[in-house]
């Protein structure tokens, strides 16, 4: 029975039990010993308010439900215009978008461009994980491992062998793909949840190895002084290193640190466009259809002659290689990497981007990546609560709109 007084009292009581010690009391060091102090009137005010909210919420549960039911679910796909005019308009809009993306950084602050570059990295990561989780339905919780492989590949190859950024991009992707292959083999037969935990373990293993193999990876201190990418050999620094020329010297303009930032941004745009195009093609090829079929019903796939081993491995490796790509760029942009950048929470964030965006839907993933990167920046005062809100968002979204912001739409195929 909802809405009864008993329920309300019970729920309020539960809230009190939950909060009384964990929130209501503070465990802290007083000098060298541990002591327990009351958490202060503020905190207790919040606790009692919370209890009150739960009490009245339960008491008037029916009315509250009705209220929430009236909040419309966002239907972003409805915003997309339909019809033939849209089809002729689309290429123009896309070109306008691309031009806008290329021109925009010259008109805004450096911080904004930097943020955009970070967003582009997460877009890449989201699209890559989208292949594994969204299309093929394989729960990968250790995606950050491939990201790390890409980053460390560039850092190490550049430091020990002087490979340039552009040379390392495909190498990083290839190496990450190899790791994806190696991880893929043992996990092929595993059911959903087990797969998730094993991949999580794999991600953690990579991080621990990176943290402890100090002789090669620099351990917790990581690797610093990573070379920035050059434009056909032109460096974006104030003074060129031996035998090279700087960008501003070549073009006869004054040095500005903004050049470097914009250059990195433009590289990111290029990489993202390549990734979007490639994945789009893959989705329309037999392998893309096979991934989705695998997600839908693995047994039916097997009965139709599809080799699930090959299909799963291809999803893993292609997803991993995208992360490797992104990792290589990440190392180049930061100039410094350490195992701290590759903790589990990153995998969780990327997974959240894929799921909240709408699994399989590229547009949804892009949108979600933008929201997840930009929102924390806008709500700077709440940065302490950032992770708390993130966790809460995941729980709430799954109850409210599990299909994501932009659920994937099936392609309409011409029958000819």
């Amino acid at each position: 029975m909802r809405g009864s007084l008993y329920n309300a009292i019970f729920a309020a009581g539960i809230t009190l039990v939950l909060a009384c010690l964990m929130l209501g009391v503070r465990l802290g060091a007083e000098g060298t010993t541990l002591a327990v102090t009351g958490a202060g009137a503020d905190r207790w005010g919040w606790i009692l308010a919370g209890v009150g909210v739960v009490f009245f919420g339960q008491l008037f549960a029916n009315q509250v439900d009705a209220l929430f039911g009236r909040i419309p679910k966002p239907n972003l796909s409805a915003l997309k215009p339909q019809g033939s005019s849209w089809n002729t308009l689309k290429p123009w809009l896309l070109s306008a978008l691309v031009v806008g993306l290329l021109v925009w950084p010259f008109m805004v602050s450096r911080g904004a461009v930097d943020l955009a570059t970070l967003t582009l990295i997460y877009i890449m990561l989201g699209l890559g994980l989208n292949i594994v989780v969204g299309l093929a339905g394989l729960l990968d919780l250790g995606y950050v491992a491939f990201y790390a492989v890409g980053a460390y590949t560039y850092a190490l190859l550049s430091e020990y062998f002087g490979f340039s950024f552009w040379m390392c991009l495909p190498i990083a992707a290839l190496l990450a793909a190899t790791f994806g292959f190696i991880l893929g083999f043992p996990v092929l037969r595993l059911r959903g949840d087990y797969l998730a935990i094993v991949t999580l373990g794999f991600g953690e293993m990579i991080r621990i190895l990176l943290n402890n193999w100090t002789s090669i990876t620099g351990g917790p201190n990581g690797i610093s002084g990573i070379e920035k990418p050059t434009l056909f050999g032109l460096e974006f620094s104030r003074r060129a290193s031996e035998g090279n020329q700087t960008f501003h010297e070549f073009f006869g303009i004054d040095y500005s640190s903004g050049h470097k930032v914009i250059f990195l941004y433009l590289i990111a745009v290029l990489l993202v466009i390549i990734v979007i195009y490639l994945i789009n093609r893959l989705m329309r090829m037999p392998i893309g259809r096979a991934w989705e079929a695998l997600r839908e019903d693995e047994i039916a796939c097997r009965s139709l002659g599809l080799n699930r081993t090959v299909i799963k491995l291809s999803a893993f490796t292609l997803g991993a290689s995208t992360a490797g790509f992104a990792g290589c760029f990440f190392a180049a942009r930061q100039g410094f990497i350490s195992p701290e950048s590759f903790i589990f929470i990153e995998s969780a964030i990327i997974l959240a981007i894929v799921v909240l965006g709408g699994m399989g839907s590229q547009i949804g993933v892009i949108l979600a990546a933008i929201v997840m990167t930009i929102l924390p920046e806008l709500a700077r005062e709440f940065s302490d609560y950032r992770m708390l809100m993130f966790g809460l968002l995941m729980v709430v979204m799954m109850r409210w709109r599990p299909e994501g912001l932009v659920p994937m739409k099936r392609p309409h195929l011409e029958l000819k």
Partner: protein
Amino acid sequence: MTEASLYLLQQIINGLTIGSTYALIAIGYTMVYGIIGMINFAHGEIYMIGSYVSFIVITGLLAMGSFALPLVLFIALLVAMLIASTYGWTVERVAYRPLRGSNRLIALISAIGMSIFLQNYVALAQGSRDVALAPLISGSVLELGSLDTFEVTLSWMQLLIWVVTLVTMTSLTLFISRSRMGRACRACAEDLGMTNLLGIDTNRIISLTFVIGAALAAIAGLLLGLYYGVINPFIGFMAGLKAFTAAVLGGIGSIPGAMLGGLILGVTEALTAAYFPSEYKDVVAFGLLVTILLFRPTGILGKPEVEKV
């Protein structure tokens, strides 16, 4: 006995100690997985909350002065079990029950979200730094060997852990096998739908499963908190992962399996830390997990499953 074998014995003692606490946490995972087929990602955080509550109660009672240590610990245990169970119950009602019919990934995301939420909730409520408690139980029960070679010790703390976990697991086993509720739990784990049709309120049994798991995790929280002396809001992650490994090792869904898996994992970890660089001991857990899933996915005590087509 030689020095090497004394050293080995000490590692085994240490390993069994840690392992039995892993077992306590692992039981929570295995019971929940056995009944609703999902990994309770937030279970590690329940363990962490249990340890925080224990520390709070212990510190508070000790400050009040006149209580004897055993009484303090006992009260701390009860309060931690109560509050952790409440958290476990609430997590199920809020984050899992509404998603009961949905696909695996949705439930998993919700669980991960809950885990992240709880970690940061405690970090905000109690600070994200380590909290250290002065050792309360010291000294050893028995010592083997001599000071010239290597001295094997079994500390009082270790003995306490052994005794408490033994009592707990025995009680749980008796409860599951003898009591009516326990039978209902087993029935639900076998066939949830059928049990429902037979008139048993499966929702209550599921809640009970979460509550029991949480209570056990709280016990582990108290014991490990006392053993290590330090806690922070993020200990649930690693502990949860290892406990899950133990559950899978022993056979997911099997309570004796969780106990066995915990002990095996504990001993393997201790031996690894003793003979290899200790940072790699965490890697051992994952290595074991991958190995067991490759070669015997149903675990040591699990029944081989035949895929129904």
